[in-house]
């Protein structure tokens, strides 16, 4: 499965005084099996973009091909689109409402009209895939779980729909360091197990540098960079002008370079920077 976006534009309230171009002529392609990251600060259009990718919003102009199907075409089956492209919103645990974990995760598949056996099987798989103990949590109220666990249940609800692309909008927002890392490990695990396209919106440049194959940078509704993390984060000055940071490893390397240490190349992990600094100092 691949995603091809061509000249996508979305204008909120067209013709009204509060008219606003939220997406401005965006084109990019995400190849099968890619882990893509979307960065850009609040209001840059990231959330508007991902809502187009699963058909929640229709573009003012432009189109989105998922494999060869145009999901923006007037006759497109939007239910089918939402089924195959799963979107996990920010703070998805706020959307939990059922009395048990099992019922909550089963809500989506039940609406698909699947058989009871198929539903139970999907629910069990999804709960296991997000790293929870199925037998231990199935009968528990989601509200008795920790914040990180609740978020996993919410993600399981999306996975149980059997999506072929998983989009996560800031999946670690508001979590502490341990839960943050656990959720990322879970996302990585799901990506590896399924081999599907995964798209993650994030403010955390360390996570983007470490996890993704492709980074899309948004600014005022426009796509301003599209490349591998190494390519994108080699444009430190431009990113800073957009109000974005570099991964810590690159940030530290740049400060040292500015102070006269001869470091070349771009740095994605702390170990890479430490190796290069040690080498430069021992010369």
């Amino acid at each position, binding site marked *: 499965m691949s995603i091809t976006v061509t000249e996508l534009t979305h204008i909120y309230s067209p013709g009204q005084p509060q008219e606003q171009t939220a997406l401005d002529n965006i084109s990019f392609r995400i190849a099968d099996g890619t882990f893509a990251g979307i960065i850009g600060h609040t209001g840059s259009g990231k959330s508007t973009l991902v809502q187009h990718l699963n058909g929640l919003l229709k573009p003012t102009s432009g189109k989105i091909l998922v494999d060869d199907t145009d999901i923006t075409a007037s006759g497109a089956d939007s239910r089918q689109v939402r089924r195959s492209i799963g979107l996990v919103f920010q703070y998805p645990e706020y959307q939990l409402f059922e009395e048990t974990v099992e019922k909550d995760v089963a809500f989506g598949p039940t609406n698909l009209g699947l058989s009871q056996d198929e539903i139970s099987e999907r629910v069990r798989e999804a709960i296991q895939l997000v790293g929870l103990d199925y037998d231990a949590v199935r009968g528990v109220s989601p509200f008795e779980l920790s914040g990180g666990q609740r978020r996993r249940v919410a993600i399981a609800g999306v996975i149980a729909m059997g999506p072929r692309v998983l989009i996560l909008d800031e999946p670690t927002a508001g979590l502490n360091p341990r839960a943050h890392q656990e959720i990322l490990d879970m996302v990585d695990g799901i990506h590896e197990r399924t081999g599907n396209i995964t798209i993650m919106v994030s403010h955390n440049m360390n996570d983007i540098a470490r996890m993704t194959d492709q980074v899309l940078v948004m600014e005022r509704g426009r796509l301003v960079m599209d490349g591998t993390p190494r390519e994108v984060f080699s444009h430190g000055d431009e990113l800073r002008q957009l109000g974005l940071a570099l991964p810590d490893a690159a940030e530290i390397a740049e400060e040292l370079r500015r102070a006269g240490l001869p470091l070349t190349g771009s740095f994605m992990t*702390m170990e890479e920077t430490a190796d290069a600094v040690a080498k430069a100092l021992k010369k």
Partner: protein
Amino acid sequence: MTAFLEVQNLVFDYIKQDGTTVRAINNISFEVEQGSFTAIIGQNGSGKSTLAKNINALLLPASGRVLVDGLDTADPASLWEIRRRVAMVFQNPDNQIVSSIVEDDVAFGPENLGIDPDEIRRRVSFALSAVEMEEYRKKAPHQLSGGQKQRIAIAGAVAMQPACIVFDEPTAMLDPRGRGEVLDVIERLNEQGITCVLITHFMEEAARADHVIVLDEGEIKMDGQPAEIFRRPEKLRELSLDVPPAVQMAHLLRQRGIDLPEDINGTEELVRCLCRSQ
């Protein structure tokens, strides 16, 4: 130096629906100096928010004492005096804003104290300028960014003219820019003499305080200046906490045979040490 807050052998238990109790705070003691900036860090469930609510008598100790400016939180007669001295700012700005116009929201607290309207106007102007939001005074809160809304919530606290503000994870829901704005405001209020207690799980925020308390499972595991705390990355990792990037880098460089002093907290110090040895 005088202590503004004294927590003495504090114990706090939550009672669950089935009647069993869970010990959230297990016999902790510490002091917060008047005018200081103290950070309390710990992972979720470590007891840090429960501790915050014990500071201004939203919760009362099961045993032990909490003294605020010498007043015992367990004494009902002191309740209003304590709340007047200690204001709180919570995680989600949307849950703390009550009015549809920024300046009305900031005025809400002082109005409830029955203060003279001229004085309220002065306080609102002062509070909005303290958080650098004067030009937004006539705006609707929903038009603001998360960081701006949180600064309005802080202005609401400042307008009460408290001696101390307890910030309970005020940046957890904000983007990096919003977090920076809120931290700058906290530092500036502290410079103006307000005692600040910041509950957080971001290490780089704790690095800006003068005093850091690390909580885990309701107990104090570490207590000292930021440099003393960050000198022990293994201990922090054991408590599921991160160290700031510069501290982590210094650690990796030492492993690679580079001689560095023990008290590096920030990138500036790291750069100075490495580029001096050149």
